[in-house]
């Protein structure tokens, strides 16, 4: 199968212009900044961060945990799309499947790194987690189910679905040959092999879907089970986490695929129809999440114990009002844009992207609004009220890890086809 037939699918490979190198340079710079901040944090301890003891007017879980929850949230996109493609035979979304899987892997990787950098004793943390792990702690499941189970299964999913493309690439002598021999692993393209793969992937998707739901709800349970923290202890945490994960996950996928579509000119493959579907799903999920926020806030404000009322007041009209209203308004705006387009049956890419961006901004704020105020204001004993703001160290570590994610993503697009080769593209020699 000649290069011309592959043609459009190989566009990412031959567009390694100056702009790409500039991007890589910027990303490396940001990662260096993050690395330097991490070096200081390791040598001088977390004192350099803005975190302080709960009760002494600070928050012990800061922006690192907020970003951890956000990243594990957006990892929702990968599996849900691939599962949709495999299980529901929605071939329409096949082109974005691999992008989703890659997003999941990188997001989970970043999430695990955020936990690691938040630990006071990171090296001991890794060892003791394996050695003395206790299932009674919700963190155990965050660690074993998400960081290993979910990440590992997505890797396998991607490996199996990528074997065929690797063999085609090898056959055509493109890119890095030894990499593809490993990745194809003796794959011989034939109808029977393709059937076998599809069957296996369908089975794996069925296995992974519960993992998906379990992972995000366990993350919710990390907070939802804590009777000690007003504002956390609600049954809605787990479902809310899954919903926001869906909304922000798909939103992130939309953003990434649109960026790839524009930079690599893959307009014919990534048709507007795909984005319409994703957009609708995201809009629906956002709508449900708005409903959940309202119900939680209503319950807190109406009859919550003093800690919760304090948080609700601070969020609605107090010190945290700007963050909370920015969050809720961006969700509502995103939902309205999608709903308007849905009602008028005319979708614009610009509309979908803006609402995807708004959802993610809202998600970033929402995660922190759940975690931090409950520690600084949600005291059940009469401590003085506290405040928390990330120090430059924390912000540069976050920026550094963001850059790492984008860096891995862009490198991957250079070494492996980002869009699965369709059936018609034959793999035989």
């Amino acid at each position, binding site marked *: 199968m000649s290069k011309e037939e592959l043609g459009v699918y190989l566009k990412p490979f031959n567009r390694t212009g100056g702009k790409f190198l500039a991007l890589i340079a910027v990303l490396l710079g940001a990662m260096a900044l993050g690395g330097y901040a991490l070096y200081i944090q390791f040598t001088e301890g977390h004192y350099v961060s803005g975190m302080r003891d709960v009760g002494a007017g600070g928050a012990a879980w800061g922006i690192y945990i907020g970003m951890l929850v956000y990243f594990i949230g957006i990892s929702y996109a990968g599996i849900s799309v691939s599962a949709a493609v495999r299980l529901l035979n929605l071939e329409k979304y096949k082109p974005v499947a691999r992008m989703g899987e890659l997003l999941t892997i990188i997001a989970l990787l970043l999430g695990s790194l955020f936990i690691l950098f938040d630990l006071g004793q990171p090296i001991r943390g890794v060892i003791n987690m394996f050695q*003395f*792990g*206790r299932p009674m702690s919700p963190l155990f499941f965050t660690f*074993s189910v998400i960081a290993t189970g979910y990440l590992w299964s997505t890797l396998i999913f991607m490996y*199996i679905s990528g074997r065929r493309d690797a063999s085609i690439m090898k056959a055509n002598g493109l890119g890095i040959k030894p990499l593809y021999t490993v990745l194809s692993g003796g794959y011989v393209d034939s109808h029977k092999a393709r059937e*076998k793969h599809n069957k296996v992937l369908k089975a794996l998707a069925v296995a992974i879907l519960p993992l998906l739901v379990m992972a995000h709800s366990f993350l919710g349970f990390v907070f939802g089970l804590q009777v000690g923290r007003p504002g956390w202890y609600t049954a809605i945490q787990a479902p809310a986490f899954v919903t926001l994960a869906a909304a922000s996950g798909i939103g992130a996928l939309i953003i990434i695929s649109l960026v790839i579509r524009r930079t690599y000119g893959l307009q014919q493959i990534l048709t507007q129809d795909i984005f319409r579907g994703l957009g609708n799903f995201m809009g629906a999920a956002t709508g449900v999440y708005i409903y959940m926020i309202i119900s939680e806030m209503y319950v807190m404000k109406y009859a919550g114990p003093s800690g919760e009322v304090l948080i609700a007041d601070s969020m609605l009209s107090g010190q945290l009002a700007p963050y909370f209203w920015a969050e809720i308004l961006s969700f509502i705006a995103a939902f309205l844009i999608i709903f308007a387009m849905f009602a008028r049956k005319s979708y614009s890419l610009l509309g979908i992207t803006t609402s995807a961006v708004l959802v993610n901004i809202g998600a970033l704020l929402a995660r922190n609004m759940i975690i931090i105020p409950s520690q600084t204001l949600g005291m059940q004993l009469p401590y003085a009220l506290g405040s928390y703001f990330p120090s430059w160290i924390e912000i540069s570590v976050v920026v550094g890890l963001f850059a790492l994610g984008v860096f891995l993503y862009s490198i991957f697009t250079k070494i492996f086809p980002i869009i699965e080769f369709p059936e018609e593209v034959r793999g035989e020699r």
Partner: protein
Amino acid sequence: MGRTLALLTLAIGLILMAVGLMTVAPVGETAGPVISNPKIPFAAGIWVLGMMTSLLTPVAYVMGREK
């Protein structure tokens, strides 16, 4: 051949998971002295290893010599 290899990996995986879960520190009433130690060290590690092995079954199945 692929089928047997897959079933073998799945079996090993599930056994490891079972061993891990049985020897990990128990979930239980915290009133008495909570036995916070696993019966054997690295029980959690074994549980994770088990989960990863069982997730390898599809690869084993696919990698098995196509008939």
